C-alpha cells in the first residue's frame, strides 16, 4: 500500500491536465480570461505552500502574506536593477523570501499554538506597516513599486528610473517601460498564465513529494502528537522550521509570480487579511490535502472577481422571466449576496463549510464518492484512508 506511487502519478497527471486545460474548464463559468487564470495559479501555489505548514504540521501562521510581499518587492527590484527576464526575479524572490521565513520562523517557532499564530501575525503586520510608511524609499509606499523607463536623467532616484544593468550589458533596446519576459516570451496574458501554470505544476509535484516523504510523515506526526514525537527521538523544531521556510518560499514564489505577470508591488499584499485569505482558501478546499487548497484558492478568487461584479442590473436581467413584482423582490434579495454584498456570501460560505464540512470541499467530494462506493468491501475503505494524504 505504500508502493501506490501509481496513484500519485495519476493524481499528478490529472492535476496537470486540469491546470493546463483551465481556460477551457473555466469557460462555462465566464472565468476564462488571463488575469483570473493567473490568479488561480498563483494563489493555488501559495495555498499549496501554506498547506505544507498548516495542513501537515497544524501550525497556523497568520503572517504568510509578508512573504508574498517580500517576493513581489524583490522581483520588481530585480526587474528594475538587473533584467526584465523573469528567471532571476523568481530565483531571488524565492531565496530572499526563504531568508525572511527563516528569521521569522526561527523566532516564532519558539512558541506554539495561538502564541505562534500571534507572533507570525505581529511580524507580518510590522512588515506591512513599515512598508506602507517608513520604508517608502524601498517600497514606494501606497502607490506601490513600479517599473519605469531607463534612467536618462542622473538626478532621478531608483524609484523613478530603472537601470537594468544586465539588460544594458546585453545591449537590449527598450522603448518606454518594458514588460517582464521569459527569454523573449512575454509573461502577461495567456503566456503569463502558462508560465504560472507550469510553475504551479512543478510546485504541486514538489509538494506531493514532500507529503509522501519521510519528512512529510514527520510533519504529520507533529500535527498528530508533537509531544510524543519528542519522546520518539525527533526534534520537532528543525522540522517545523524547515516546513515554515519551505512554505515561506512558496509564498515568495507566488509573490514573485504576481510581480512577473503584473509588474507592480504594493504593501497591502502583506496585510494580515491577506494572510487570513490563504487560511480560508486552505480550509475551504480541504486542509492537509494536496488538491484542496488549489480548489479553495480558485473559488475565493473567482468569487472576488466574478460574484462581486453581478450588480443589480445583471441580477434583474437574469430574473426577467419572473413576473415584475416577484422579479424585483427576487432581484433585490439576491443582490444582497452578490455584487457589493459578496463579502456576506463569503462569510456564510465559510460558516457553512466549517460547520458541515470541516474537511473542506475535498471532504465533500469524498462523501459524495462514498455514497456510490458504499457497497464495496472494507479493503477499498482502508485503501482510501492511506491514500488520503495524497489527494
Amino acid at each position: 500500500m505504500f508502493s501506490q506511487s501509481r496513484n500519485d502519478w495519476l493524481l499528478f497527471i490529472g492535476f496537470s491536465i486540469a491546470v493546463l486545460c483551465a481556460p477551457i474548464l473555466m469557460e462555462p463559468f465566464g472565468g476564462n480570461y488571463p488575469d483570473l487564470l493567473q490568479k488561480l495559479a498563483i494563489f493555488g501555489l501559495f495555498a499549496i505552500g501554506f498547506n505544507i505548514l498548516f495542513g501537515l504540521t497544524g501550525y497556523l501562521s497568520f503572517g504568510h502574506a509578508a512573504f508574498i510581499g517580500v517576493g513581489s518587492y524583490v522581483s520588481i527590484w530585480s526587474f528594475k536593477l538587473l533584467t526584465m527576464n523573469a528567471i532571476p526575479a523568481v530565483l531571488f524572490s524565492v531565496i530572499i523570501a526563504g531568508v525572511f521565513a527563516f528569521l521569522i520562523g526561527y523566532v516564532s517557532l519558539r512558541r506554539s499554538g495561538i502564541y505562534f499564530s500571534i507572533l507570525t501575525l505581529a511580524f507580518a503586520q510590522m512588515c506591512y506597516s513599515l512598508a506602507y510608511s517608513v520604508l517608502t524609499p524601498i517600497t514606494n509606499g501606497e502607490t506601490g513599486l513600479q517599473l519605469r523607463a531607463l534612467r536618462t536623467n542622473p538626478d532621478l532616484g531608483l524609484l523613478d528610473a530603472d537601470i537594468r544593468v544586465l539588460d544594458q550589458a546585453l545591449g537590449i533596446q527598450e522603448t518606454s517601460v518594458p514588460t517582464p519576459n521569459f527569454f523573449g516570451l512575454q509573461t502577461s496574458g495567456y503566456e503569463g498564465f502558462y508560465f504560472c501554470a507550469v510553475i504551479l505544476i512543478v510546485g504541486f509535484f514538489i509538494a506531493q513529494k514532500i507529503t509522501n516523504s519521510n519528512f512529510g510523515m514527520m510533519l504529520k506526526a507533529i500535527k498528530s502528537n508533537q509531544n510524543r514525537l519528542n519522546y520518539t527521538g525527533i526534534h520537532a523544531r528543525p522540522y517545523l522550521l524547515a516546513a515554515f521556510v519551505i512554505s515561506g518560499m512558496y509564498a515568495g514564489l507566488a509573490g514573485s509570480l504576481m510581480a512577473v505577470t503584473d509588474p507592480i508591488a504594493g504593501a497591502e499584499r502583506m496585510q494580515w487579511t491577506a494572510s487570513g485569505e490563504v487560511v480560508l482558501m486552505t480550509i475551504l478546499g480541504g486542509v492537509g490535502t494536496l488538491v484542496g487548497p488549489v480548489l479553495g484558492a480558485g473559488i475565493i478568487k473567482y468569487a472576488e472577481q466574478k460574484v462581486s461584479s453581478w450588480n443589480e442590473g445583471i441580477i434583474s436581467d437574469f430574473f426577467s422571466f419572473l413576473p415584475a413584482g416577484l422579479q424585483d423582490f427576487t432581484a433585490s434579495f439576491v443582490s444582497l449576496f452578490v455584487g457589493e454584498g459578496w463579502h456576506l456570501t463569503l462569510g456564510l460560505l465559510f460558516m457553512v463549510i466549517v460547520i458541515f464540512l470541516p474537511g473542506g470541499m475535498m471532504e465533500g467530494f469524498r462523501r459524495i464518492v462514498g455514497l456510490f462506493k458504499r457497497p464495496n468491501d472494507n479493503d477499498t475503505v482502508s485503501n482510501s484512508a492511506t491514500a488520503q494524504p495524497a489527494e
Partner: protein
Amino acid sequence: MAVTETSATEAPREFQSGVANSVLHINDVHKSFAGLHALSDVDLAVREGETHAIIGPNGAGKSTLLNVCVGRLKPDRGSVTFDGEILTGKEPHEINQLGVARVFQTPEVFPDLTVLENVMVPALSKRDGHFTLNPFKRFGAETRLRDEAEATLKSVGLQGQLTALASSMSRGDKRRLELAMGLIQHPRLLLLDEPTAGMARHDTNATIDLLKQIKEGGMTKVIIEHDMHVVFSLADRISVLAGGRIIAQGTPEEIKNNPKVKEAYLGDEEV
C-alpha cells in the same frame, strides 16, 4: 501515607549494589511540586540487561521518577546518568537518541497516522537521528524498515491493522502499539509505564511473554507496574517507592519477604 513517611526515613542503602555495572544511575534525585515532595533522595541503579520493576502505591512518585528519566521533568536536585551520560537537563529527544525509549501509561500514539506509520516514525528516528532534511526521500520506498516494522507489529499482534488509523483503535490495541513503538527502536533501555494496565488477562499474559522474549535479547528494562503478577513474572530486581522515597530494593523473593514493604505497601494486598 503517614506510615510510609516515617518508615522511609530509614531508606535502606545497603540494597544498592552493582553500581559499577549499572547502566542507568539515578543519583539523589529530589523533586517537589508546590511544596509537595514527589521524590526525595532517590538513589537507584539499574544493571545492564536486567528487568527492574518499580512498584509502589498510587502517588508514590513512580511516574514522576520516569518523567525525570526521560527529560519531561527537571529534578530540583540530583542527576540521572545513563551509560556515563548525564541525562538531567537534556531534551527528551536527545535522551531518546541515546537509546532510552519510553512506553507511556496512557497511550500516546499518533492518532492521525496509520498503525504502520506510528511504528515507522520511531524506526526512522532510530536510523536517521533527531533531524534529517531530505524532503524527497519517499516514505513508501523504505522497504527494509517497513519489513521490520511489520514484524514488530506482528510480534505485538497488530499485523491485521497496518493501515488503520491509530485513532480508530481500541485502548488495548493502542497499548500494544505503544509497545511496538518502543520495541522497534531496539533501545538499550526501555522504560515501561504500566504496560498492561487495562488489558484483559490473556492479553496481559501475551504481553508478559513478549517482554520475556525481549529479555532474552539483553535489553535493559525499567518497568512500573501495579499488577504483581506481571512484576513477579518479569522482574529481576524490584525497587519499592513510597512517599517519594525508595523503601526497599532487592530480588522478587527479598521483596516478598521484606516486612517493611509488606507494612508500607503490600499490606493486606495479596501477592
